């Protein structure tokens, strides 16, 4: 029984450690929905990125990565610069 509980615990922990990482990026200059479409496009071109959410009210670009994949802060900053925007803060969850 103990072995079974241990196996179940390891299994659950394994699943959570492989779940996609999430990052919140606070972006400067992001005031126009039409102009900001490039942000979504730039990140969706990255195969590490599972989902992109853009919120103009909070100035947040929320990225979710596929399992075991990620983007470095420098790459996130570069992609936002290519889209024409600046980065105020990057927070990993």
């Amino acid at each position, binding site marked *: 029984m103990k072995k079974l509980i241990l196996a179940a615990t390891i299994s659950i922990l394994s699943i959570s450690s492989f779940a996609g990482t999430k990052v919140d990026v606070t972006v400067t*200059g992001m005031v126009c929905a039409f102009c900001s479409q490039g942000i979504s496009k730039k990140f969706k071109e990255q195969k590490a990125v599972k989902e992109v959410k853009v919120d103009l009210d909070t100035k947040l670009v929320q990225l979710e990565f596929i399992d075991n994949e990620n983007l470095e802060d420098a790459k996130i900053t570069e992609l936002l610069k290519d889209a024409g925007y600046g980065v105020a803060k990057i927070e990993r969850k």
Partner: protein
Amino acid sequence: MKLLRFMIFLLGITTIFKAYAHPVAYAGSTSIMTWASESSTDWMLTHSFSPRFATSYHFMRMREHNNALHEDKFHLLSGNFLVKRWNQLESQGNIYVSLGAGMETNKKAVGYSSIDLDWESRDYYVSYKTETLVRQDGADPYIRSKFRVGFAPYRGGFEELNTWIIAELSKESDASKEYDLTPLVRFYYRNILTEAGVSLNGEYNFNFMVHF
């Protein structure tokens, strides 16, 4: 009074205007833009190689104000430069310069320049653009300037319909009236933008832009 003088000074500095459409977009993007009124039509195909540089092909049609039966048509290529951008948390400001050259349909060469200034937040928008066409045939340079102010009646989200109410003050160098005021309504949804309005002189305006 000082503000009025400053606005007149801005309008007097130089020259067509599409301040609502940045001449440089995100790296790798392609844009199609059209501006149509009774007296002129512009088509512009733009590719942005970086967030600071783009090239455009323009087709422009202009009806002469003193001869409604005669239209001038131009084909132009331009380089568009983002000279300066201010990215703030609540706003963005930009200065763009475009330089180009091309031909009239009568085979005469033309030179082109434009300056774009804009600032916008989620609620307000102000822009100025002036364009100049210098013609080889010795005709006076064609100069067109536009000054705009606008506001958003509500804050639209990233994937929602956004609406703006805009007032545009324009001046063309060969226009019969000095200035024309056009109230416009702008809608955009995702990567598609349209504007429509009728000037106080009764001239309709319709603008469309898509980028991908």
